[in-house]
């Protein structure tokens, strides 16, 4: 039950009004294997080709070159969770949607009903099961997206930003259910997300996709990326600003009466080291906020 990708490349062509061709190279020479029990966390900037790669494995997009090897492909069920709520029929209820997709999966009606009951209890959506899909919130729709993927026991599972629109509590609950399900059944999985904490907590392997290239990361490399994506903002008293020296590059983001919000730039420092710095300088910390993002992150460094 493994997946083997060899030399996958993909380029898209577009033509303007005068039939001039533009080539967009999305993926180039991608090779990797996915074994049972592997949960591969795939990170990369927007537009790197993560979704394209997943769709190539799902056989929804044809690669320009290379091959995807899956044993007995036609009999395998690959579950796919993305953040597209439009893949449901909005005028039907959540239950009717699940019944329809269950029937397409060739499941008997009795089994579909049983599965819907179990999943709705597990994901706490019993009370909205018969509500028209269009009346659900984006987060509730996403729960149904995940439930649909689990209607039939998958041989493989691919998750593309599965926690989109979910609140923190629901996200933690559902993602931990998903993780234990994947590990228990030893289902090979690929998990794409911009939330590096999520990837760190749930995945057993890590990879980065950027500028057409793919690289498997070891845990240390991933942690480095994760730390670099931290974006701590500190609220301090304005009077303490002059105590800060040039050890860090400092940016004052905003001023809030007697306090101000600042950012310290030093890629290698952990939160503990930053806090120690404030303690050493005898600067009172009012609050700390981590606005994580991967903006400005130099993905190319990992391919050198």
């Amino acid at each position, binding site marked *: 039950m493994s997946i083997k990708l060899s030399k996958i490349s*993909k380029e*898209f*062509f577009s033509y303007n009004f005068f039939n001039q061709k533009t080539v967009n190279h999305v993926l180039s020479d991608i090779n990797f294997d996915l074994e049972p029990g592997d949960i591969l966390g795939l990170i990369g900037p927007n537009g790197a080709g993560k979704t*394209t790669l997943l*769709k190539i494995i*799902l*056989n*929804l*997009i*044809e690669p320009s070159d290379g091959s995807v090897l899956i044993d007995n492909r*036609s009999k395998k*069920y*690959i*579950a*796919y969770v993305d953040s*597209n709520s*439009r*893949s*449901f*029929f909005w*005028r*039907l209820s959540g239950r*009717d949607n699940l019944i*329809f*997709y269950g*029937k*397409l*999966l*060739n499941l008997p009606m009795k089994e579909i009903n049983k599965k819907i009951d179990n999943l709705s209890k597990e994901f706490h959506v019993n009370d909205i099961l018969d509500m*028209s899909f269009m009346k659900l919130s984006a987060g509730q729709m996403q729960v149904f997206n995940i439930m*649909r993927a689990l209607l039939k026991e998958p041989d493989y599972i691919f998750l593309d930003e599965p926690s989109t629109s979910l609140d923190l509590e629901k996200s933690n609950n559902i993602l931990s259910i998903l993780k234990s399900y994947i590990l228990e059944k030893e289902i090979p999985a690929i998990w794409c997300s911009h939330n590096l904490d999520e990837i760190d907590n749930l995945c057993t392997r890590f990879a980065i996709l950027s500028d057409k290239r793919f690289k498997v990361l070891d845990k240390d490399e991933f942690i480095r990326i994760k730390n670099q994506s931290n974006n701590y903002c500190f609220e301090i008293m304005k009077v303490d600003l002059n105590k800060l020296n040039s050890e860090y590059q400092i940016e004052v983001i905003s001023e809030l009466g007697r306090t101000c919000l600042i950012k310290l730039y030093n890629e290698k420092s952990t939160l503990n080291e930053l806090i120690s710095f404030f303690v050493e300088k005898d600067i009172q910390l009012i609050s700390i906020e981590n606005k994580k993002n991967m903006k400005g992150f130099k993905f190319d460094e990992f391919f050198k």
Partner: protein
Amino acid sequence: MSFLNKFYAFLIRDLKISLTYKFNLLIQVIGLIFLFTVVFFSLKEDIQGQVNLNYIYFFLNLASIDFMLSAISVFSREVRTAQIAGTFEAMLLTNTSFFTVIFSSYARTFVRCITRTIFYLIVCKLFFYSEIVLFDMLIVIVSLVYNSIPFIGIGLISASFIVAFKVGDVSTFFIALLAIFFSGIFFPINSLPYFLQSFGDINPLKVGLETTKILIQDNFVFLDLFPYLTVTLIEIILFLPIGIILLNYGFRLAKKNGNLSFY
């Protein structure tokens, strides 16, 4: 069996969706009642308790056009809707073949056409003194379905353009227009210039109508049907495989271009 189960799933899904559009259903019912009322009162003087096949032919013409227009347009329309909405990829991910999705999307329209035909024939029997029995209904429906298969082929060709290029559904419009023009429904074909009359002979809509008209006559001879059935069969052999091949090509092209879904 799997195909029939999935076809049934599509039918139930589409019926449930239709039932949520209550106002649309009401308008359709009002439209049908209006149509029958107009036909009844405009022909009332002529009926006078007599059996007259022309009234049945009128409704058979309606049913034939219904089957034809549906077969030509439903595939491209459903494919486009599924591609825009994003349900197309989700359905394919259930290991349901592309062709099962395409053909099953015809389920509701197919059932609607049959239901309407039965309704027309019941009205003919109740209000237009037609001596239609259950067997006639069955034979009319079989004939209409058989004669709509060439249009299914044309509909698949039209859908292949939509799958691959997202636009270009002009074939539906022109083919429907030509088929109705050369059908003999609105004017007799022999009033056309001689060189154009032969188009009528190969027009699946006209051929289908002639077949059905013969079938509802009391003492029809199978030999009379033979030329019509043969023409339709040739058209089925011609259009259906072309439709399937082009649709398959369009599907592969869409996968290559990465636009099975487009929003």
